[in-house]
């Protein structure tokens, strides 16, 4: 079985000598990202609480960092980097498209229900 692994991450910025080394490199990267997330979650610096696009900036940072982690888990641990373009797109774009749609529909509706409760003649505080 010949398995050619693509050993470069971060668009070729870091190149590893062997697959094992790449695995440890990715572990370090994921650990750093998780540590940053937890530190931000505990400290909650005041600049990060500014509202951006309907959410706190901090929440956007968390979501982006999560997607970064998901990318490295899928690309390097699950070896998506080494699969053909066709398989990669069939898996990734299908999921991303459907999930974005689902999230949009449900969050939009949740916000609407909140407004109905808030502005309508419904008493909740008793």
């Amino acid at each position, binding site marked *: *079985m010949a*398995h050619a692994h693509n050993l470069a991450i971060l668009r070729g910025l870091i190149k590893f000598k062997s*697959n*094992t080394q790449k*695995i*440890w490199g990715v*572990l370090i990267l*994921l*650990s750093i990202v*998780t*540590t940053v*997330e*937890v530190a931000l*979650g*505990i400290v909650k610096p005041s600049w990060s*609480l500014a509202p951006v696009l309907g959410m706190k900036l901090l*929440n956007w940072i*968390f*979501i982006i960092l*999560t997607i970064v*982690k*998901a990318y490295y*888990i*899928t690309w*390097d*641990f*699950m*070896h998506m980097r080494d*699969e*053909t373009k*066709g*398989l990669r797109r*069939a*898996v990734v774009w*299908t*999921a991303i498209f*459907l*999930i974005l749609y*689902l*999230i949009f529909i*449900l*969050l939009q*509706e*949740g*916000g609407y*229900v*909140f407004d109905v*409760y*808030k502005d309508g003649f419904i*008493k*909740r*505080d*008793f």
Partner: protein
Amino acid sequence: MSTTVVNADTEGKTWGGGNQPLKASYGKMMMWFFIVSDALTFSGFLAAYGFSRFKFIDSWPIADEVFTHFPFLHGVNAPMYYVAFMTFVLIMSSVTMVLAVDAGHHLNKAKVTLYMFLTIIGGLIFVGSQAWEWNTFIKGDYGAVQTKGGNILQFVDTEGHRVALKDFVVADTHKERVQDERKSGLWFTSEGTLPTYTVEEVVNGLEAHDNVLVRTQIINEEGEKTVLSRAESLRQIKENGKLVVEGANLHVNEYGSPLFADFFFFITGFHGFHVFSGVLINIIIFFNVVLGTYERRKSYEMVEKVGLYWHFVDLVWVFVFTFFYLV
């Protein structure tokens, strides 16, 4: 003369069959598509959680105040450290899994065995941690009062620190209240464990302690829960207090909206079930490795397939961690 057609002489002919455009084996591809469908299931759950959260955006529990415990450190306020540890354990077991896959490519049986074993241990530590997390969550620690409208009223001192019911309430008036069991009346009616205190006792305790205030679910502009004035606290409890709540289950939840507990149990439970079945599958594969099944097959692809599943479980946890504990 063999009657089985092994190769139909169609190499190089695009439509002649025998092509593998995705260059992946059947099993691996099907594992990928199973993962896609499972990812959609999980995103359905998480999006439903988002729906409920946006629906109650001004009163949702704050995760930092709910998950504050660390094993063996009683009374220490340690928000998120334990989940961070759990996340690290799961990522670590993902690493040992991918090392097992890598060793499999080199047909190194000893190394595959070792790494599969470490992966299983990591999975077990994670499931155990989750059981501990559930136990702490179900028990609760401060207690609260639920109002007629289903809102939760918690108690704080004048500096804003949480106060547990047991610190200011005395159980004295409800000696005659007996838990309804199946044997005591109609066989089909019963009730859960009675709370330690009655609402009346909480009112008495609140009146006796001037420094205890009521905190509502509503989140104010500073992103903190609203604390009522002393007079308003007494009024709320007296007029609206209905039920004393200790800990959380599918009906009531001392941390706030019952939906929070429902989603917590359902989503982390479903994920925990995935980890558990992942551990079982890993154990089966581990024994196959030890018995030399893949050694004889000259291919460790089975390890790779179960590895995909295991990484997926890790991937889901990364999202659960973000949306339940961080955001």
